[in-house]
């Protein structure tokens, strides 16, 4: 009887002694799980945060154009809008606004369009001109969002006007659909000058 009592006592002591240890282990594993979840959450929220940050990166002119007609809203000072947009335009260091039309063509065409015409590597995703404009008559899959650029160089348009329009279309038509290529850094000043050449040069397929 006495012996049995002792055994019970010992066992229960053991259980009590063991309990904190097992609890600690449990807590530890819970912590690890919590940590992993938190890490997961941090990772996920960062992706969402990144998207929200990108959505929030609206400049004040984009904000002005964010209305149901998608044009400069009533009550806005359009002259001021245009003035501010003109002030953003930068020109190539050498001052040449008309560059190399062949380089310009390669910027204007997608790689697959370039290959279809010339059977070699070239083209770029940067300009994407034919998504919205027609121009080179050999390119049939051209959009009709912007005006056709066929024969653009024969119309007596000042190349500087062309340059400005590509650099920042909103300096001429506030809230225009056309991207502000230079303003957003989609094209460098030199690249824009090459596209100006593609549009104006009499040798360019645009004008031939």
């Amino acid at each position, binding site marked *: 009887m006495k012996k049995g009592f002792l055994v019970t006592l010992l066992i229960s002591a053991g259980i009590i002694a063991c309990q904190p240890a097992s609890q600690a282990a449990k807590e530890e594993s819970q912590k690890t799980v919590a940590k992993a979840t938190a890490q997961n959450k941090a990772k996920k929220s960062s*992706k969402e945060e990144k*998207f929200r940050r990108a959505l929030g990166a609206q400049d004040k002119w984009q904000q002005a154009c964010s209305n149901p007609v998608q044009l400069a809203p009533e009550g806005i000072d359009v002259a001021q809008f245009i003035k501010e947009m003109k002030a953003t335009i930068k020109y190539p260091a050498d001052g040449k606004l008309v560059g190399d039309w062949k380089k310009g063509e390669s910027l204007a065409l997608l790689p697959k369009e370039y290959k279809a015409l010339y059977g070699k590597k070239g083209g770029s995703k940067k300009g994407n001109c034919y998504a919205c404009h027609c121009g080179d008559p050999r390119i049939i899959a051209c959009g009709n969002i912007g005006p056709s650029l066929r024969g653009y160089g024969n119309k007596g348009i000042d190349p500087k006007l062309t340059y400005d329009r590509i650099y920042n279309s*909103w300096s001429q038509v506030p809230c225009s659909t056309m991207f502000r290529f230079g303003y957003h850094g989609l094209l460098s000043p030199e690249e824009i000058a090459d596209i100006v050449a593609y549009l104006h040069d009499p040798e360019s397929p645009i004008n031939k």
Partner: protein
Amino acid sequence: MKKSILASLLGGALFFANAEAPTPEQLKILKEMGVSPADVIVEEGRDYYHNLKGSTGKTCASCHGQDGANLVGAYAKMPRYYTDIGKVADVDLRIKACLEKYVGVSAKGKKGRKYIVPLAGYVATLSNEMPINIELEHPEEKRLYEYGKELWYKRVGARDFSCAICHDVLAGKRIRLQKLGAPVRDKLYAHWPAYRISKDKLWTMEDRIRGCYKSFFLFDPKKGKFDFKKNWVKKPPFYMEEIIALELYMKKAANGAKIEVPGLLR
């Protein structure tokens, strides 16, 4: 394989018939022929609905009934607020939550889309012929609707895009040869989810919106101006509130339009 051959054949035929509009006529022609590549995917969804089991041992049918008995008409009212998950969910997020919460199947990320997309297609077909009916009863639904409207018009990113500039203002014009649809004006939501012949895939509206945002050239302003490699933020993550807000805006605009899914697109 067979499916993709069929798809390209159909794609060719449709290209000459009418390359652009996701019209019910096209669906009608195909239905008369007794084929639609999308049906295969919807069937897959039906199979998951009845047979996909996870850790709980339940299937979708355990709660929603044989052949989706209790889900008839459900899609016409989605996205809407769900008390069990405490937020507004579209069909994608609703299915994801069900899979994870009640079926016990992990439906995370791209792997989860394997189940979610066919299931969404199947669940949507259960509301065929019914009018879209978004009611905006819950305050959260109203809030998201307003947010969706704001996003619809929001010019942003390195291309100064908004949804509206292409799909309201320029609707009917072409990007290259692809005609721009007007989901709000023409109630196009009635044809979504849609099978995209060019991708050989069923797309839910989540897929569509994410694809659209890719063309915005959104960028993380923390790393300066837009750069293809450095800071291009291509797509919002799946099930993000912004996506559901836009869905709510577009689907509300389509109220009254008869659901005819899966739609069929280029």
